[in-house]
């Protein structure tokens, strides 16, 4: 009972921070912040980091860590880009088939990268931090080799719609992201595999003796993480119409920050999808808000770090008082 309260407390605290940030920004610059244009721009920027945070969170809940999500994303984007540029030379406006094939290839690369990670962590038993450190360098490196270090650009309009299109006024990436969060929540709360993920993350030994197929759990975590990273990568390429190997390299640790701020326990076993959503929205508000207020973007880094540390300290301090009143 106390544990649920504690988890809820984190979400409650996070929600409080969200309200404070949203209120502050609405009061300070109501005309700019509360405009449709602002919401649209936030809804375009948010999903890239959001998808990476989901990928990061999945692996964190399983008790591991995935530093290679940016590598996977970048590599998937580059592979998709190369396929589209291959088909480009013959026709003036490449068909839906080529674009679909390119996206499919990108997603497959994501799954493949996830599989490599899963093999190293589950089968070879290497510490996740080291394994994903190596694969991050490897995947990004392959991306650099494929592009010879330069940027690829100029993609068909059909593809650009993924990152820049609007449906009922809401950017496509945002719709995809909301769908992903809902799927994640369903997976974590209502499926057996999601439940097993929590069990394994809390205590791998106990889960082993509880007839949970540990290998299957780890495989799922990393495969899905890779898949989601590749979605992020494709959206990234589509939004800026460029595929570059070193784009978004800082996203890896930022995604981690979002996940942990959202209530995902880095030692595994805890975390809710709605927490991730709240966390990324809050941080995006801070980011966009600082832009609007013409505050240095460096201060944004500082505030993000402060929020993370603050929430973690509060998480440690508050249960102590709760116990005393019992």
């Amino acid at each position, binding site marked *: 009972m106390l544990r649920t309260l504690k988890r809820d407390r984190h979400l409650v605290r996070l929600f409080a921070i969200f309200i404070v940030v949203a209120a502050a920004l609405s009061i300070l610059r109501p005309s700019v912040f509360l405009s449709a244009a602002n919401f649209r721009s936030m809804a375009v920027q948010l999903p890239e980091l959001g998808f990476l945070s989901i990928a990061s969170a999945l692996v964190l809940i399983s008790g591991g860590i995935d*530093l290679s999500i940016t590598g996977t994303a970048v590599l998937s984007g580059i592979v998709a880009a190369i396929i589209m540029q291959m088909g480009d030379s013959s026709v003036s406006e490449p068909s839906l088939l080529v674009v679909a094939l390119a996206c499919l290839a990108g997603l497959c690369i994501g799954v493949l990268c996830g599989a490599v990670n899963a093999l*190293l962590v589950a089968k*070879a*038993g*290497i*510490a996740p*931090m*080291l*394994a994903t*450190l*190596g*694969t*991050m*360098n*490897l*995947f*990004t*490196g*392959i991306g*650099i*080799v494929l592009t*010879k*270090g330069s940027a690829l650009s100029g993609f068909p309009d059909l593809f650009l719609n993924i990152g820049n299109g609007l449906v009922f006024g809401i950017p496509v990436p945002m719709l995809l992201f909301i769908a992903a969060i809902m799927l994640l929540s369903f997976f974590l709360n209502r499926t057996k595999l999601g439940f097993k993920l929590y069990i394994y993350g809390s205590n791998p030994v106990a889960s082993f003796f509880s007839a949970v197929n540990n290998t299957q759990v780890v495989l799922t975590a990393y495969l899905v993480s890779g898949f989601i990273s590749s979605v992020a990568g494709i959206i990234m390429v589509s939004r800026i119409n460029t595929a570059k190997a070193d784009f978004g*390299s800082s996203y890896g*640790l930022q995604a*981690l*920050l979002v996940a*942990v701020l959202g209530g995902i326990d*880095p*030692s595994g076993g805890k975390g809710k999808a709605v927490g991730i959503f709240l966390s990324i929205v809050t941080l995006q508000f801070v980011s966009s808000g600082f832009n609007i207020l013409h505050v*240095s973007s*460096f*201060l*944004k*880094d*500082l*505030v*993000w*770090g*402060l929020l*993370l*540390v603050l929430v*973690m*300290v509060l998480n*440690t*301090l508050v249960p102590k008082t709760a116990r005393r009143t019992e």
Partner: protein
Amino acid sequence: MSVRSLIKSNEFFLLFIIVLMCVIFGIVNPAFFSAVNVFDVLKSMVETGILAMGCLVVIVSGGLDLSFMTVAVFAMHTICRFFGEYYNNAPMLLLFLAGALIGGLLGIFNSLFIAKFKLPSFIVTLGTSNIIKGFLLAFIGSKQINNIPNAMIAFSKNNLISIKTNSGIANLHTGVLLLAAVVIVTSLLLSKTMLGRRIYCIGGSPSSSERVGFNNIGTLVFVYAFMGIVAGVTGITHASFQRMSNPFDMVGKELNIIAAVTLGGPQVGGGYGNAGGTMLGVLLITLINNSLIMLKIPTFWQKATIGLIIIIGTLVQKYRYNKSL
């Protein structure tokens, strides 16, 4: 006893790999063995090696510090800015001490959350690295400083040995003495002092360490302060080598150093590791970085190669560890 022999053989194995690599590189490009190249490699090892020593102590204590790069950059940029503007003729020693002081203070700041609030070091230092970086860029300066103290520029030209060779003048920079000093201090600290044993103990089992009566909090504060001091010194050295202070430098290389440390020691989590093994790991990574250019491998293959090396290296180590069980 068996684990100790594993560690010992781990170092011999690393040494074997390094020798093998040197032989291969030498065959492909005999210039590899030239004095110019050897001294070059040694100079490249200075920054990486000093930072690796700090990381080693943190990893031995069972933690992981992701903020050391930002601490180094913070110390570097702050010292360069203030001494550059107000006290341009400060002696090098004073600059090093000031850098160490700033680094140490930031390290203590880190340790507050890790030792007192018992938060996981990995996530906390992720947060504090953002805080430190944001603070530096927002309040101290985000522009490159070219007007660094004279002593730093003088230091960058300070060479131990200068040999004239066919391909140019081979200079062994004094920085290697600094590296040697840090390595010796770390090695003695870990192996010969009670404080060192306490660090290993915390890394092995924090609860046991408490029950035995060690002051966990004090030890952890020292660990992170040490990392901070080391990072500060590295920052000053970096600015000296570059002859300027760019606050966007160095960040992004943290993971390579952590890779070097973990390649050089058994990956059993906290409680294991020593200076010698770590230096071998640093040497390996530096050799790879430097020699890819010598082998005429295009620079854009570097990242992939490093990644492969880390993966293969850890696989091999894991295989040998499993075999020994």
